């Protein structure tokens, strides 16, 4: 039995890595991907707790998170496509319409 500590620490590390990736990257698609990483880190934490609490509820939650993440990815990518069609670029610095 692997103590849950390890998994939790791993989850934290992955989450932070995802957050940092979001800041470092400049193109939209990769930024989007880093969001998925963060979601996964959260999923890991949920599963860990599901095991230590000995209830499958945590897994159900993860199930839903995955579903919603899929839906979100679909719509998000559609929007990115549209942006690309408009601006011919996916550099995040160029999305400055809301300035000021």
């Amino acid at each position, binding site marked *: 039995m692997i103590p849950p500590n390890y998994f939790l620490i791993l989850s934290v590390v992955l989450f932070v890595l995802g957050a940092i990736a979001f*800041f470092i990257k400049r193109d939209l698609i990769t*930024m989007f991907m880093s969001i998925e990483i963060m979601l996964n880190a959260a999923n890991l934490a949920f599963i860990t707790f599901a095991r230590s609490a000995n209830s499958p509820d945590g897994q159900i939650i993860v199930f839903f998170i995955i579903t919603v993440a899929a839906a979100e990815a679909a719509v998000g990518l559609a929007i990115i496509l549209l942006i690309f069609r408009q601006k011919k670029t996916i550099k*995040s610095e160029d999305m*400055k*319409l809301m*300035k*000021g």
Partner: protein
Amino acid sequence: MTEIFWLIPFIPAASTLILAVFGKKLPKKYVSFQACLAVFASFVISAISAVGLLQTAHGNYPLVKNLFSWIQAGSFQVNLSLMFDPLSAVMALVVSGVGFIIHVYSIGYMADDEGYTRYFTYLNLFTFSMLILVMASNLILMFVGWEGVGLCSYLLIGFWFEKHSAANAGKKAFIVNRIGDTGFLLGILFIFIHIGSGEFTAINEAISGGAISVGLATLIAILLFVGATGKSAQIPLYVWLPDAMEGPTPVSALIHAATMVTAGVYMVCRMNLLYTLSETAAQVVALVGAITAVYAATMALTQNDIKRVLAYSTISQIGYMFIGCGVGAYAAGMFHLYTHAFFKSLLFLAAGSVMHALSGEINMKKMGGLRKYLPLTYPTFLIGAIAIAGVPFFSGFFSKDAILTRAFAQGQYSAFYYFIWGLGIMGAVLTALYMFRLIFLTFHGEERLDPEVKKHIHESPKIMTIPLVILAFFSVGAGYIGLPVVLGEKLNFFGKFLEPVIKEVQEVHLSIQTEWMLIAIAAVVAFLGIFIAYVFYIRSPLIPRNLATRFPTIYKLMFNKYYMDEIYNAVFVKPTIKGSEIIYDNFDLKVIDGAVNGAATATGFAGKILSYFQSGLIKDYALIFLLGVIIFLAYLLF
């Protein structure tokens, strides 16, 4: 029946409201009809209430009606309550009665004026304020009326506001009044501090109960008197009254002869216990009154404007009223107020009639020999002049004599009062002199009329001359309700009527011979003045000119009103204006505007800085998000 007395001020008030709101749309005839009717209604109710007073037992004075509780701040309480006692009754009757006559006269005088409706609105407003002033049962409500009449004075003096001189005169009147009001307010303040209430009944109780020391009474009495000098145009705050002649003549008659300027006298009489307690204050009042009486009379001697002569005459006569109050003859002072109301307003209205006949001419040098053209105006004017000069059997004689007799009688205690009496006698000579100078210059002698004016000369319409006749009648007969005590105590109805209000005044007695002698002196003095005027202006018209050339400095002083206006201007007005300009430039523009503008600039600046944070980039927002989370977590953990 006296229960309805509280309606007296409110009928003109209602009329004012109606005229103010709907006046423009109402026909002219109705406007004047309503205005006059309102004042007449007040007069009728005053008369009924006064008669009711005569039948009420003395112990029930004064009748007070508390309308509502106006201010209540802890122990400071002021009520809107009116009272009716003999003193208020006299004033209310004078204000509404003479006011009504003048309203009627105005219908004729202001017939062609554009501001007809506005005029009657203001007149009614004035009547309302004055009635509040005389019927208030506490000092604060009286002050409300005091300010109200001051306001109406401003509005009516500057009635023809397009004329610069009129607008300035209105301002001058209001500002000079205000200066007096400072003293008045301070007096009220002291009364509240030491007595705790502004109600006259409470004040009188406190004074007779010994709650006020003589020193404090002196202070308060003098402060209140300062307010009176402003409102009643005595030295040093009289300078507004001559300029107030810029207003329409009926206004001068009502406000500046019969009613508003007498408010100071009313106030002193109302507070008579205070002045009786403090002999110093009473002497100050008498002295100021006496000096003003003579001082103003000298100025009246040299004026050429017919209305200004009457204005200075008013200042002088009010001085007499204050002499009366100052020597303890409060009833005599009020009596003179009452008779003066009749003959002075008669004189003003008659002067207005003369001006109307001469198409607006006011310079006496351009009149003369008018008696054959104005068959109704001349005799009424003459009656008024005789009354004011103090010729026996006319009303002015009885009132002036009452005052001077008392002054002489007080001389038994202190020579000061002989001095006052002396000034009074001198003033009487001058009064007769300047009044008959006016008569002779205007109605007698050679005609010095402008030919254009002569073409249009005409007697005034009946609506203007009938009031003159009525007033003339009263100028003769009004004095008979206050016959000298010499003829019998019982005949002094006026004094008896006012007895319950005037309390604790020492009785002074003179021997009968002395009293008759004084009456004789008063009569002689009046005739002396008339005789001198006759000599100067009819028999040898060159004498005045010679006197003027022989004593040029004195003449110049008198003619230029002793340069008081110029002195005031240099000492008070100019420095104040300069001071306020300096403050405006340095403080108002720089500090206050700077602060306000600075706040706006600072806000804009802050906004600009904050807008740097909104770059529109998701990453920056996310960064701040993250930082926020970190800080929040740190806060939670530590």
